[in-house]
């Protein structure tokens, strides 16, 4: 049975190494801020006892004040999972650091989030539209996208 690790416990562990990086934590997930996303992700991947080597999915959600991007991590060795979230504020040109260097599976998923939401990822080798065509105006999955 894949154990969904408690966000609060992992948050306490991470606070020791990256003070100030955690914005909030709950039993389901933990929210980190933008600057500490990449260091926290590296720590989660390499720390013995955590070993999150499998990035199951990246999703973005548009809550009107902010975009929330969540990373669902799994460890195949230890069979546990964790959800890490981060927020970016502002509707014009939001951006986040890319995790492609840690998990290659993020490649197409980050391009898709860029295409449909407009969030750009710094450090992505090939950030361009993937499911829509170049020249398409707007980002359809935003809540304020008007079709006609």
């Amino acid at each position, binding site marked *: 049975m894949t154990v969904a690790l408690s966000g609060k416990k992992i948050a306490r562990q991470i606070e020791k190494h990256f003070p100030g990086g955690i914005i909030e934590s709950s039993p389901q997930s933990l929210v980190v801020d933008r600057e500490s996303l990449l260091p926290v992700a590296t720590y989660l991947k390499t720390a013995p006892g955590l070993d999150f080597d499998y990035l199951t999915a990246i999703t973005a959600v548009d809550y009107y004040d902010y975009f929330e991007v969540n990373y669902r991590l799994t460890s195949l060795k230890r069979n546990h999972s964790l959800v890490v979230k981060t927020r970016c504020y502002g509707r014009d040109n939001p951006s986040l650091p890319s995790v492609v260097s840690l998990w290659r599976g993020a490649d197409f998923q980050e391009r898709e989030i860029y295409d449909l939401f407009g969030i750009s990822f710094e450090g992505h080798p090939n950030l*361009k*539209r993937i499911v*829509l*065509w*170049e*020249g398409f105006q707007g980002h*359809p999955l935003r809540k304020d996208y008007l*079709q006609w």
Partner: protein
Amino acid sequence: MEIGELYSRRQLDEAEGEQIEALKARSQQPIPDPDDWLEEELRRNILMTSVDSLLNWARRSSLWPAICFPACCAFELIATAASRFDISRFGMEIIRASPRQGDLMITAGTLTWKMAPQVRRIYDQMPEPKWVIAMGACAISGGIFASSYSVVPGYNRIIPVDVYVPGCPPRPEALLYGIRMLQQKIARMSLITQGR
């Protein structure tokens, strides 16, 4: 790798995007169905000559489909072509990859604006006389996806359609009935009123 490439990948993508936007701007109204000649013939009482009958029999008994299968209806088309429903008894077992050798396009699947220029190109490459069967709800009107931002509401925005086969996906028997209707339509063509 940029050796030997005249255009960068970015430029290729942008050229494709311009082509799509131009086609979208041109295709805001559906193309009228090519069957006005059917009523006209009845009105004028033109008799079918024996040359016409022979030609029409030859044409309708060996329709060769060209490939255009984007989505789910493709699998009903494959099932029709397989051994249980056997499209080959109607002379259509050769599903040619090259549109230059095809004379029927069975459009099986949803059309998106990104795919539309390619479908138009395949249609233009088919030699006359050619026919189109729109298979499935997505091909007729956009189907369940009609209100989406990237779906063309029906193939008749891009190419003229002869027969519409409803269903989601239509059963192989329904597709065979649609093919039979097309064969009846072809049987009424004559060299004098040569369709389009």
